[in-house]
């Protein structure tokens, strides 16, 4: 099975791509429109610099080659949601091409990524259609992958990981204002079908699964797959063939004569691209020699936690960074996150003291907690001692736990459950978990 995706990402600019209309915040239909994005004759497109800059960042994220010079083309497309009936897009000079995205160890080829404008949005109504052009002229990057994805589940996994990276690298807020839509190409045999305009990760997986089953059935019964465009019906969860002439007759790709060329090389030099979460996972594995699972756990918790990890790993060492960041710091991350990166140095100092054997690991743990929660050390020690005593008692009440724990770490849950019940919320669950494991480990 071969799957290739075309992913449309709305870019977080403040104004539209070719006019100054605001990109977000419209309260009703057709509020953020002007003669330009309504395609009124006599208006001219005026290119938003920020759209080009974000395009460059995405192209870099996808490890694409960015050309020195770009221009735009007109793609003719007769549809009521597209104001001029041509879309300003890129044909010869996409902002990125020949890239690759590493999904764990699997490379997914990126054919290209190009800048283009979004059309308006439509709803059916009785006899005709009702159109809202607030979205008309919103900047998009369309990412086209090679047909390297081998299952609907992998497609979803790829999209999940890619979107996380995209959100971080271009600061794309997850506030529902900007959508991400996919055209999905899938072939079970030789011929492929395209399922157009699917929104949401779940729907992509569902549409692809439906289509894989459909194509398999057709082939098994001796039929042939017809190359066609299909729609995904979200309610019925099926794909249906689009009418042929609906999308027939693309031509032109005339060079957009109103915009001239853009020397991307000059712009690109000034842009600093943030590291993507996925890129950081690979780098942490290489640079610090930690497991992929550990790297992901830290980075997926928060990019700020990952930065803290990196700082401690450099100032102390990797072993201590893993021990303390994955342990007590992660457990208390909710309290700490809003105060970062201001508390980086304080935390690092405590860990360095431990590394230099000035304090033992219980002390280190207490000090970190006191530092994070703002409590005094004696409170921590008292609480910690109380908690330790309670845990030891729970273990001695139930001695078989130690043998079970040796075989399977999950046995600790019995002790944890008992202590939680007994203390009724006086201690945080992460503290109980941590202390129980520490004590059981000591007893082994």
């Amino acid at each position, binding site marked *: 099975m071969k799957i290739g995706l075309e992913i449309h990402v709305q870019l977080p600019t403040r104004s539209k791509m070719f006019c100054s209309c605001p990109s977000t915040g419209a309260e009703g239909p057709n509020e953020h429109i002007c*003669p330009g994005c*309504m*395609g*009124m*004759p*006599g*208006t*001219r*497109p*005026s*290119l938003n610099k920020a759209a080009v800059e974000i395009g460059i960042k995405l192209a870099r994220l996808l490890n694409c080659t960015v050309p020195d010079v770009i221009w735009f083309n*007109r793609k*003719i497309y*007769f*549809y*009521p949601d597209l*104001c*001029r*009936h*041509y879309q300003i897009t890129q044909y010869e000079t996409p902002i990125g091409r020949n890239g690759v995205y590493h999904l764990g160890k699997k490379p997914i080829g990126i054919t290209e990524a190009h800048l283009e404008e979004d059309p308006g949005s439509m709803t059916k109504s009785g*006899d*005709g*259609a009702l159109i809202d052009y607030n979205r008309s002229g919103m900047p998009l990057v369309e990412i086209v992958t090679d047909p390297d994805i081998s299952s609907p589940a992998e497609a979803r996994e790829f999209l999940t990981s890619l979107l996380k990276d995209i959100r971080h690298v271009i600061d794309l807020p997850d506030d529902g204002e900007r959508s991400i839509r996919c055209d999905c190409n899938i072939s079970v045999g030789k011929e492929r079908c395209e399922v157009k305009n699917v929104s949401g990760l779940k729907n992509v997986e569902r549409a692809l699964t439906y289509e894989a089953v459909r194509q398999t059935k057709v082939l098994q019964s001796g039929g042939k797959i017809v190359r066609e465009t299909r729609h995904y019906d979200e309610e019925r969860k099926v794909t249906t063939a689009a009418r042929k*002439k*609906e999308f027939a*007759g693309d*031509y*032109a*790709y*005339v*060079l957009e*004569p*109103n*915009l*001239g060329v853009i020397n991307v090389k000059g712009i690109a030099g000034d842009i600093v691209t943030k590291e993507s979460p996925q890129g950081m996972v690979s780098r942490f594995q290489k640079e610090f020699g930690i497991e992929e699972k550990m790297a992901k756990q830290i980075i997926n918790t928060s990019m700020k936690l990952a930065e803290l990890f990196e700082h401690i790993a450099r100032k102390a060492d990797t072993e201590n960074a893993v021990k303390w960041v994955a342990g007590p710091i992660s457990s208390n991350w909710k309290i700490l996150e809003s105060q970062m990166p201001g508390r980086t140095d304080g935390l690092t100092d405590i860990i360095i003291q431990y590394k230099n054997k000035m304090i033992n690991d219980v002390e280190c743990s207490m000090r970190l907690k006191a530092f994070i929660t703002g409590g005094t050390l004696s409170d921590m020690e008292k609480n910690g001692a109380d908690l330790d005593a309670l845990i030891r008692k729970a273990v001695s009440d139930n001695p078989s736990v130690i043998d079970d724990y040796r075989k399977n770490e999950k046995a600790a849950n019995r002790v944890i459950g008992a202590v939680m019940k007994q203390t009724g919320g006086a201690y945080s669950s992460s503290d109980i978990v941590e202390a129980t494991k520490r004590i059981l480990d000591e007893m082994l």
Partner: protein
Amino acid sequence: MTRHRIINERYRMFSETAARPDDGPEFSVSDDIAAMGFQAAAGSRVLEGYRPVFDATAVSRLKAVGRSLVGKTNMDEFGFGMFTTTGPEVPRNPFDIRRSCGGSSGGAACAAAVLDDHVALGTSAGGSITSPAAFCGIFGLTPTHGRVSRYGQIDSVSSMGSIGVLASKSSMLRECLPVISGKDRMDPVSTVQPVLKLGKKLRSAAVPKGITDGVGKDVRKAFDDSLDVLRGMSVDVEYVDMPSLRYALPAHYILSVTETATNLVTYCGMRVGKQDGDLSLPFNDYFVSFRSRYFGREAKLRSIMGALMTSGENRNAFYLRSLGIRQLLLEDHKDVLRTHDVIVTPSMPSVAPNFSDIEGMSSVDRYVTGRFAVPPVFCGLPCLSVPCGYSGGMPAGMQLTSDHWDEGVLISAAEEWEKMFPMKRPEVSV
């Protein structure tokens, strides 16, 4: 009835006139230039009823210096024509009303020739200012592509051409071009222009060898005599080889129909202009029926030609090839203009034809009358048509082409020319 309306009954230059014109200096704009309070239909039925909510930059700039807009002038549908016979109304030549005003900005030239002290803005993307200026015996200045903001210009062709000035006196060119020129953030193309410099005197002119081959005797004589007038103005006149000129018409044709086809896809009976179709039809049928019903013949032909020139392998063979030819032509022109201030040719191969003769001409026959008027515009170069002789009472024109952004030398040339050449005004009987 205002005087403009009475005159319009005879010459039919206006598609619409202001209800209450102000006193003082006036101007008009062709029907493809947006102005608040007026319809802007670009001579097409598809745009009937379109009333723009903004002024074209050229319009707002002329208003700002105190000229008042008195009307919109007739033109060929979307500029497709050399005789202004394809729009809703056909303006008549002020020197002989049985003849054409030229086109596509025919109404503009007619207004500038007939009305005193009238500045007419027209547009050209392939000789549409040179042609009517020559046929109506006036000055017609087509600036460098991008010199005048195209914001508010309803274009069929976008990578070349300009809004320009048609006037019976050279002083109006000097007055109005600086006003309508200049950078405008509403048109990115205008933002690359250098400052307009006036005052450069015309010293040297190049004439492409064999340029008058196949041109009518009367026009050839007027042109040859004009070269002598230029020499009398102590201008060096030299014959040069410009072998690429013969490719200008076919290459321009390809590029203009291609861009036209993409600009005209906008018009489908939604959002703008006529919208009287049956919305219960499926959208494709709705679009097809609307376009088939309201586009004129030439608009249909060019839309189809544009689709042909860019589909499949034709994109390389025709569309991209035309861009290559334009580069050749541009280099040829630049070579000559490095050593000469202007290139001089006749404006049109004949004087204004009778309407009865035009009727029998095919689409291509009409198009090739632009053989002199097309090349400069194709290359984005500024050009000026000046009246240079009369044959049987009908004016003939001479076209001067200068380098990009050098409109200054053309305006100086117009002023000198006006002193040396006895221009005639048409007799206006109303």
